[in-house]
């Protein structure tokens, strides 16, 4: 199979705790892959390590055939690796629309000289704002476009985080850390349908950390389950869910 992301034997220690204890996860290209597991099993640490927020203590990260283990986060993004945060890390001084628009990279107006030359960036910026408006319409935040994150509810913040991660141009892989927690079920389904559509129409690849397995499972192609910093099962989503080790890890956790 063709893999967009291959993490080999990742180890990440926090003091004595091995948050990732030799994790090997391969994300197949053009599919929606789930990463499940109880709290503290290392899912978010895995996302943070893959996206470059953490440096692994051992192991390699191969993205689209290239070793990116030592690259800073912004260079990973530029290679097509986009991520969202479990606890939304929104720009508190920026409005909903600005938060979303910023997530598109490559604006020629982001310079201290080009910034004051409107001609250079007006076209790109107009496109960007249009796309941002469409996305916040989809996530039902349109009426809040000029509000700052501090004025949003927890669920709305999650939706803004989802809008942001949908903003970049043609990402090769989108890592989503619990995109639907705190979001009401009908909208959660809609978000997953949208993800599905992006996968089908544009061949986009997703790796999604999710707690709400009831909803997520029907939209995913493949699944990994983690417990205590290790991968305990992988395969078709429903099979993984029924795997005794996975059930035990949830109950025993």
């Amino acid at each position: 199979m063709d893999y967009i992301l291959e993490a080999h034997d990742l180890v990440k220690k926090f003091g004595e705790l091995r948050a990732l204890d030799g994790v090997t996860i391969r994300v197949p290209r053009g599919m929606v892959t789930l990463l499940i597991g109880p709290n503290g099993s290392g899912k978010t640490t895995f996302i943070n390590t893959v996206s470059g927020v953490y440096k692994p203590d051992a192991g390699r990260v191969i993205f689209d055939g290239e070793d990116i283990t030592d690259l800073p986060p912004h260079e990973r993004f530029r290679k097509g690796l986009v991520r969202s945060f479990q606890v939304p890390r929104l720009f508190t001084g920026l409005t909903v629309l600005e938060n979303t628009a910023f997530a598109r990279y490559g604006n020629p107006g982001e310079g201290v000289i080009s910034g004051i030359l409107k001609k250079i960036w007006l076209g790109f910026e107009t496109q960007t704002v249009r796309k941002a408006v469409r996305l916040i319409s989809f996530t039902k935040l349109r009426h809040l476009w000029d509000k700052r994150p501090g004025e949003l509810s927890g669920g709305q913040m999650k939706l803004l985080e989802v809008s942001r991660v949908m903003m970049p141009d043609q990402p090769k892989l989108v890592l989503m850390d619990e995109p639907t927690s705190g979001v009401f079920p009908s909208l959660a389904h809609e978000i997953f349908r949208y993800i599905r559509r992006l996968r089908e129409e544009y061949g986009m690849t997703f790796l999604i950390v999710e707690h709400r397995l009831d909803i997520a499972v029907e939209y995913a192609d493949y699944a990994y389950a983690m417990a205590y910093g290790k991968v305990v099962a992988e395969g078709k989503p429903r099979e993984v869910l029924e795997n005794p080790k996975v059930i035990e890890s949830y109950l025993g956790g």
Partner: protein
Amino acid sequence: MSVWIFSDAFLITLFSFITVAISLNLEAGFTGIPNFGKHVFVFVGAFAAQGIGVRIAAWIYEKVEPQAAQQALEHLRSMVPGATWKSLVGAAADVDANRIVVNNYLRPFFVSHVGLEALLVVLLLVVTVALALFFGLIASYAALRLKEDYLAILLLSFAELMVMVLFYQSQSLNGGNQGLWAITFTSDPVKFALIGSGALAFISYLYAERLANSPMGRAMRAVRDDDVAASVFGRDIAVIRLKVILVSSVLAGLAGFFFIQNAALSTSMTFNRVIWTFLPWAMIILGGMANNLGAVVGAIVFLIGKRLFEYYQIPISNALHLGSSIVSALLPNIFIGIFIIVILYALPQGILPEKPSKTVKFEEILESEQGEEA
């Protein structure tokens, strides 16, 4: 007492502070770079007109009028026994001869050679920009590697080391603790300073306003709010910080260059931390962080307030029975400190709060894009 508010000296000070406040706001208010070493970046402009400016001016004078320069040198040697300088360039930056060289030879010479004077102005502006970029690079080397609190302390220490130690203790650079006369321009340097600092303040404001309402303004605010999230979305935060520091340093340096045209004789301590760092900070906190007009309003309110306070300092000091104690002398500084605390408590957002970056007409796009779920 209403006269001093509109005096040339006050206006030059005001214009210079407006530029410095705008420049600091770009760094601190928009980008979250806690520059507590702002004073050294203003000082570089003064250095360009003093230690460097007089040397370059003397060098030009020597080249154009070698005989007159030779005579001047001999005259100076007779006046300063034991002088070691071998040329007018050396004498120009020597505390014993600087005043005579600048006022008796260089200024009359350049005032009567308008073309050369214009050339010198341009040259020294280039020197100011180059120095500002150099100091900005040093500062950003640290800014790209340190967290906010450490960076603030480091920049303050760096500026203090430059202004209080290097440039104040070493007489050869900028006259040390005796200071130097700056090379000033035109037959009316005060008017030159007034027009220069006023134009600079105006241009700085226009520039900062355009930048704030561009994609760059948005990116700066994003980096300030969450640098990890900004880098996860592909931004090289080091590059964004570097650009902002460089452009802010240039603005501050130019402000110092025009300011010194009026102050003329001064030491590096004229650019001390209280006046050229803490005061601009107080101005942007009062006016509103990440709001350019706020920086301007803050500068105006603060300087007028400070002047009024200084005017009534003696009556206030007497009313508080402070006599001639050190507390009395430090009243203005104490006032600044108390004022900052009061604003932070009563007006945490400042007079004018932060605004979104108006890159395009959002309302029009909202109108035309109905979106799939709307």
